[in-house]
């Protein structure tokens, strides 16, 4: 069984490597990912925002809703941990009090 898994994983790795040889070169300006939206965002950053860091402009301005949702997700995670762990910390004391009574 272990040998079958190993063979399967090696085959999967070979398949992925073979598929990745078909991808466009890194930072290729003619790649499909770089032809569609990147030129417009670059132009808008230079014209309207005028800050050198394009990543900040995209994250905070053009995709402001995404970052707002991201902040909400992190805040909710902290809130959930606060509620769950505070409650589990109180539980043993309650049990002790119940045992004493």
């Amino acid at each position: 069984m272990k040998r079958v898994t190993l063979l399967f994983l090696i085959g999967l790795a070979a398949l992925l490597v073979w598929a990745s040889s078909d991808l466009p070169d890194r930072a290729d300006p003619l790649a499909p990912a770089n032809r569609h939206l990147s030129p417009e965002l670059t132009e808008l950053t230079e014209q309207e925002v005028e800050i050198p860091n394009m990543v900040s402009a995209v994250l905070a301005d053009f995709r402001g809703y995404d970052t707002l949702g991201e902040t909400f997700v992190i805040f909710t995670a902290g809130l959930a941990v606060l509620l769950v762990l505070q409650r589990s910390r109180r539980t043993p004391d309650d049990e002790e009090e119940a045992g004493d009574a």
Partner: protein
Amino acid sequence: MIWWLELGFFGLLILAAVVALTVRDMIAAVATLTAYSFLAAGLLALMGAVDVALTEAALGAGITGVLLVGAFSRLDRRTPD
């Protein structure tokens, strides 16, 4: 070019992943995972995505290890034996 640097980073990355999966001790696994995150941050910086590399180095290699060790220390307390 610096392709040999990236090749070394990739080799160490795979090595760190395998070690993190096979090692028995939880703390050692977390330490290896931290090394994995740092190597990934180096690779991202080599690719030119410095923002992502900064996030990976601060979160993956800094905070995640501490949080995982804290979670393990909580879990150990509640084992039945």
